[in-house]
């Protein structure tokens, strides 16, 4: 926001500037237009598309805690996997209604998030990082051990997912695509609302200068716990979407690989911009689809290299690069 120093700023103009920030910007319609268009342009890739959409939600949930509250976690798959397994178990044991399944999965994941957050968020730095990793690894081991419930390493199969709002889940992924898109849209609205609210701004304050937040009377621990719980719920929804649309849950949903991958996807797009996941996730998943098909070894190498390059040269991800380009162009005017 550039302000001409010579003009006298009034309370009203300040308020307008504030209001402008959260008004819907036409650019925000782009991802949705693209998503709808993709349905018609890539009819053979709808199943993959549904996965991408669900994973974008996963990335969005991570952005809430990483980009806005500054909580670095290596274990976000814990809540993702919880949601996946809960939705899966519901469908296996006779309740295949998808939308209620989403709600139950969200609640279960929120519970896991709340309990683990209450414990883990009392720490910081390396200890916090370690504990997030430890919690999700413990869940992984527990799921592995409880293989009579979860199917263990073989995975949970036998899920019977009922039609959603009357639409059967077809083999082409058409229903899955719209289902995931709808869920993503609703959750995105929720996330957007939170981010622009006073609560969301206070999270930015916590990320910027935690010491100061204590000094203005902000209950920092509770704020972080609340967003951690909400983020866990959203991650649970995305896990449930994946399991419902693939009718399968494997141990991988709780793995460090999954936590690491979503972290990378978000970084590629840019953290703390609300839309980082919308760019990073498709980019990563499409790249992975291409590279891993050729040779999984190459994939590991290239994604590692891209990560190193992004961190050193483009720390804001795609959004950061776009920022820099815009600024450079403004300077040359």
């Amino acid at each position, binding site marked *: 926001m550039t302000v001409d120093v010579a003009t006298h700023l009034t309370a009203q103009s*300040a*308020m307008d500037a*504030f209001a402008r920030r959260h008004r819907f910007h036409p650019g925000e319609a782009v991802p949705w237009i693209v998503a709808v268009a993709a349905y018609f342009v890539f009819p053979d890739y709808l199943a993959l598309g549904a996965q991408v959409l669900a994973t974008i939600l996963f990335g969005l949930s991570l952005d809430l805690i990483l980009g806005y509250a500054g909580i670095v976690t290596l274990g976000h798959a814990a809540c993702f996997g919880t949601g996946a397994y809960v939705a899966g178990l519901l469908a296996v044991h006779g309740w295949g209604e998808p939308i209620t399944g989403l709600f139950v999965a969200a609640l279960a994941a929120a519970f896991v998030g709340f309990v683990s957050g209450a414990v883990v968020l009392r720490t910081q730095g390396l200890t916090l990082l370690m504990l997030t990793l430890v919690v999700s690894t413990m869940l992984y081991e527990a799921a592995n051990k409880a293989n009579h419930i979860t199917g263990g390493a073989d995975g949970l199969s036998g899920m019977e997912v009922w039609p959603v709002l009357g639409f059967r889940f077809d083999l082409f992924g058409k229903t899955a695509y719209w289902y995931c898109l709808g869920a993503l849209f609703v959750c995105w609205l929720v996330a957007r609302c939170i981010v622009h*609210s*006073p609560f969301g701004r206070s999270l930015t304050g916590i990320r910027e200068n935690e010491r100061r937040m204590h*000094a*203005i*009377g902000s209950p920092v621990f509770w704020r972080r716990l609340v967003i951690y719980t909400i983020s866990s719920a959203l991650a649970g929804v995305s896990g449930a979407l994946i399991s419902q649309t693939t009718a399968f849950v494997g141990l991988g949903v709780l793995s460090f690989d999954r936590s690491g991958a979503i972290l990378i996807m978000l970084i590629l797009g840019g953290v703390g911009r609300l839309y980082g996941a919308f760019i990073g996730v498709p980019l990563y998943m499409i790249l992975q689809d291409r590279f891993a098909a050729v040779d999984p070894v190459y994939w590991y190498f290239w994604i590692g290299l891209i990560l190193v390059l992004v961190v050193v040269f483009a720390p804001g991800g795609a959004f950061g690069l776009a920022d820099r380009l815009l600024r450079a162009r403004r300077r040359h005017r």
Partner: protein
Amino acid sequence: MSDAALETQALSMSFGALRVANAIDFRLEPGARHALIGPNGAGKTTFVNLVTGALQPSEGRILLGGSDVTGLAQAHRVKRGLVRTFQITALFRGLSVLENVTLAVGERLGTASDMLRPSGARRAVIEEAFALLDRLGIADEALRPVKELAYGRQRLVEIAVALGLKPKVLLLDEPAAGVPSAESSTIIDVIEQLPADIAVLIIEHDMDLVFRLARRITVLVQGAVLVEGPPAEIAADARVRQVYLGEREHA
């Protein structure tokens, strides 16, 4: 004797073998203009950290308006009206000046936990924050990110944030530190014009400032109170002069 705005009783703290606060008895009366002075390393900022709750004392009590707050978390003390500024500016550098203050005002008014309505809709909060900035003469820079402001103006934002919390007790940790003398007069004016019902404690090194603003002075040396009294007494006290003169000899 009526309740002090802020009081400490035998406040002590040790870092290993080092006693950084030594049985400090301190009283800040309502509406006071009190200064805390002492040589470098005397423990003045440590005292503020102990009183505000950023550090936990090993012994002693802290009373705010008569009630014991020794075990209370920092944020709770703020809610009861105990506010501080930082010696090294601790603001939200990436956020705008106005937003720095609205965050504080919002916390006070209890709107900060609202998740449903956009922050721009909280007109009362924005108006109050803006009015504060106006009173301090920095309203024109309300929308600029704090990190772009001159250091002296950043110190004013610190004070604005503190005032936005409607403090009953205000602890100013070296408010004019590092500010070029051209800009420090604004800060001094602001402090002089603070509402009379706020109890103000200033930590300062600048003696001119201290003698101008304070009606009572406490001298802290090596974590313990050396002497306390009105400015004239302190200026005349031989021990105080020894501490400062002695310091100059070693410099």
